[in-house]
């Protein structure tokens, strides 16, 4: 596990407070820029969750405010969004945090480590 040696240092895990939608969006953008519709389709495919369009734009605005995503020039009426280096770092921190929780949970359930 990448950050197993760290304590509870989740002050750096900004996404913990940003909400699940933000994590899903950053995860989707991690493999390349996407516009809103493509984001929703991709998120549904890899997570099984149907995110509402209002939730999508709300999270995109928050992520943009945090400097984690940036809007690219519009293609027709669609704005593709791209993850920034700060966003990628925040996502990595958050995934590390989830991994620690997952490992503890599996261990306590007797499922072994990850």
């Amino acid at each position, binding site marked *: 596990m990448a950050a197993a040696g760290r304590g509870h240092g989740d002050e750096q895990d900004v996404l913990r407070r940003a*909400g699940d939608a933000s994590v899903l969006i950053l995860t989707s953008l991690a493999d390349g820029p996407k516009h809103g519709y493509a984001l929703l389709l991709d998120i549904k495919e890899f997570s099984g969750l149907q995110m509402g*369009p*209002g*939730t999508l734009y*709300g999270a995109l605005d928050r992520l943009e405010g945090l400097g984690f995503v940036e809007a690219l020039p519009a293609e027709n*009426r669609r704005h593709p969004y791209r993850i920034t280096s700060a966003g990628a770092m925040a996502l990595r921190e958050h995934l590390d945090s989830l991994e620690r929780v997952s490992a503890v949970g599996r261990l306590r359930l007797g499922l072994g480590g990850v």
Partner: protein
Amino acid sequence: MARHRRARLVHLAMRCYSPKWRERHADEATELADLLMRDGMSAVFIAFSFLKAATRDRLVTRPVRRLAPTAAVLLIGATLVGVPLVLLDSFTAANAASSGRSFVVVLSRHNAVGALESVFKSHRVNIKVEVESSSSSQYGAVLAVKTAAGEHGTLKVIRRACAGSVPGCLVALVVPLHFAGVVQVVVGGGPKRCETAVALANGQRSRELQPPVVRGAFDH
């Protein structure tokens, strides 16, 4: 639901957003909503998603968040043609976007009374409804909040312009969680009879002339 009605529902929900948001996202969001509906997503789900996010957008970015950190917030967007109504529990600036909240949305002027009754009942508040008429510029807006003598200090109201920049509408009402008084909320409806006659003479559409004022009295 017919296609144009679905589109109108979504369009109405998007009108709850701030002008800044609409300028930035409305075109794209409209196209996205069309694509999602084409894929079979419910228009109600889409509209509700926009309404929730619009409420959050307005509450987080506007001065409302400075009011009464532990209060129930009754936010009535006066900008819609219909009467959107949102009731938030335990509202604070920090948790405006968090879970402890419930929404009631009135998208049609014709069920405003029922929706008001529903939301107040769900929060164990009794409401009595009367119907009147009002100026067309005040249609869909909250015009007044009345309380019994000595109770007014427990409430906070936020005013903004009505349609056509006519002053005097309320955009939000903050009610403390343990408010024990009686409150009367007046929501603007259709034009007065004299205006109706003038408007008819001027050939205005009949749908602009009908709706009632909802006068709701509620107490905890």
